[in-house]
């Protein structure tokens, strides 16, 4: 069995077009959430996190004609290209696979007035993946998964397992979702959006903010040549609450199960206790309470918690990848990120939320996510 190393990455979000820009902003506790006025997205203004369209156009023109690719595809192509620049893999080799994680892809194409020059067939997720495959001349058909808000973490777990079992040498994991009227209106109908910037785990939290973005992380059976700062996958698991399709289980049973299996799997590779937890932390009343209960069940009440949705909003299919990348840079730089939006705990059990950028030497991180359909995912990474 091989190790799966994380060798390169990229984040595109409201905070910037590469990982360095994003991490710099997070370390300064600068949020990417703004009040958005855009009637194409919503009749009422809303707090969300939006990628700069002007810069997107300028960046994408370096790659191809922006008129021939959708916003979603532009995110993916720029992000994957940037991650590849920092790796030495041969992407045209059959031993490289792309895994694409998204909840709604090009759903804006359901509106026939949007991007009329783009074929409606691109609303099929396999078709948009094919466009990306053709752009990079990848030999293998991309694996596309759509599993609600845990998609990104599931994609990373799937990639790592394929490398550990030597099915592929390199796996590019790309998670992306864009802001659309389709998704915003849906969450509005759920009364799930906060009227203010979100407050994960806080006693005044009252909903989430939506965001858009893209995260790409490249996993490989070969570590980076520089021995310092290599991060390896230790274990991961996926579970279902089997309780309700749109609300988390009150007992946190499913998330607890995923964390328990992940901890068992990771025991061989983990030298000490988990350094911190990168939470899902959507800032809805139910989600954060459920997570806190699940952490308590695991005996994790004292472990530092970091929630990043106060910076990026909830980026759905991108969230698991973007937040994992940020967590890895926390490990590399010895800096725990502040859970922007959090002031006072508003859950029923003790938790240790990091509320200020904090220097701390940490060796490992647990990433968790939960999503519609009652699904949960957990994964542990560590510095070697």
């Amino acid at each position, binding site marked *: 069995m091989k190790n799966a190393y994380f060798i390169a990455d990229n984040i595109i979000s409201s905070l910037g077009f590469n990982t360095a820009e994003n991490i710099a902003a997070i370390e300064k506790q600068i949020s990417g959430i703004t009040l958005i006025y855009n009637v194409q997205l919503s*009749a009422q203004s809303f707090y969300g996190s939006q990628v700069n369209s002007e810069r997107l156009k300028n960046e994408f023109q370096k790659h191809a004609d922006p008129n021939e690719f959708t916003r979603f595809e532009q995110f993916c192509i720029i992000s994957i290209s940037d991650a590849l620049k920092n790796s030495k893999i041969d992407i045209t080799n059959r031993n490289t696979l792309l895994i694409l994680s998204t*909840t*709604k*892809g090009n*759903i804006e194409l*359901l*509106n026939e007035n949007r991007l009329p020059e783009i074929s409606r067939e691109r*609303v*099929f*997720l*396999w*078709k948009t993946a*094919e466009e990306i495959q053709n752009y990079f001349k990848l030999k293998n*058909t991309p*694996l*596309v*998964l*759509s*599993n*609600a808000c845990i998609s990104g973490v*599931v994609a990373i777990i*799937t990639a790592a*397992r*394929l490398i550990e*079992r030597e*099915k592929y040498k390199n796996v590019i994991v790309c998670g992306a979702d864009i802001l659309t*009227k*389709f998704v915003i*209106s*849906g969450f*509005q*109908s*759920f009364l799930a959006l906060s009227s203010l910037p979100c407050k994960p785990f806080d006693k005044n939290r009252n909903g989430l903010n939506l965001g858009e973005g893209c995260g790409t992380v490249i996993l490989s059976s070969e570590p980076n040549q520089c021995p310092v700062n290599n991060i390896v996958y230790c274990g991961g*698991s*996926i*579970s*279902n*609450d*089997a*309780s*309700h*399709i*749109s609300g988390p289980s009150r007992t946190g*049973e*499913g998330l607890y*199960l995923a964390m328990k*299996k992940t901890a068992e799997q990771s025991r061989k590779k983990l030298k000490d206790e988990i350094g911190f937890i990168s939470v899902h932390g959507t800032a809805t009343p139910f989600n954060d309470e459920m997570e806190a209960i699940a952490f308590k069940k695991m005996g994790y009440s004292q472990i530092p918690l970091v929630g990043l949705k106060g910076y990026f909003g909830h980026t759905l299919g991108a969230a698991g990848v973007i937040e994992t990348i940020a967590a890895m840079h926390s490990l590399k730089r010895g800096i725990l990120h502040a859970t922007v939006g959090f002031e006072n705990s508003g859950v029923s059990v003790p938790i240790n939320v990091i509320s200020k950028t904090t220097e701390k030497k940490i060796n490992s991180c647990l990433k968790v996510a939960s*999503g*519609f*359909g*009652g*699904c949960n995912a957990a994964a542990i990474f560590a510095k070697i």
Partner: protein
Amino acid sequence: MTKQLIISKYCKIIDNMIFVNGKLVFSLKKNIQFSTFVKAAYRYNNMTYPKFFKMDNLSKLGLITAEFLSDEFKTKNVLGEEIGIILSNSTSSLDTDNNYQKTISNNSDYFPSPSLFVYTLPNIVTGEICIKHKILGESVFFVSKSFDAGYIHTLVSDLILNQGIKIVLAGWVEYLDNEYVSSLCIVKNISEKAEITKEIINFTIENLKKIITG
């Protein structure tokens, strides 16, 4: 101890016909609407599950197909967390996406429907199956142009050989504009099989492809 993976049971629903292990068990005339057909299949199974009627067509289709295989979920000594589900299709939740889009496309008749929006994710069908049968293990939904036996075989095998899963429900479930096909099978280690029947279908890429797409 090495494991020998087999396909122990399979169900296909297409053109208003339901086949279990290749044998026709229920059918209605081809021209009958899906909604009528699937309700009849529900009653045929003597189900008492009111949530069924709130589901979208993709979830109804997936749930009914799983129902014909559900005795496998009750296998002795198999816990809910030891059952996994890997489903796939080519259109994701597009049928419901289109229906939801209608509730938001007209500014003068703008009433986004939460009960439709909740079904605008393909993994909700796996969620509904998990809820009904108390399945707590790994469940993932993939999208591909056509059923990819190679990838699905790799992922299912990994679940059973390396991830502590004992039984996997896997296959293809697709619904769009009254056209549909659902083809699911149960994969497990041969030692989990209750009784040895004459025919054993080994879990190979070829057999998986034949069962799901044949």
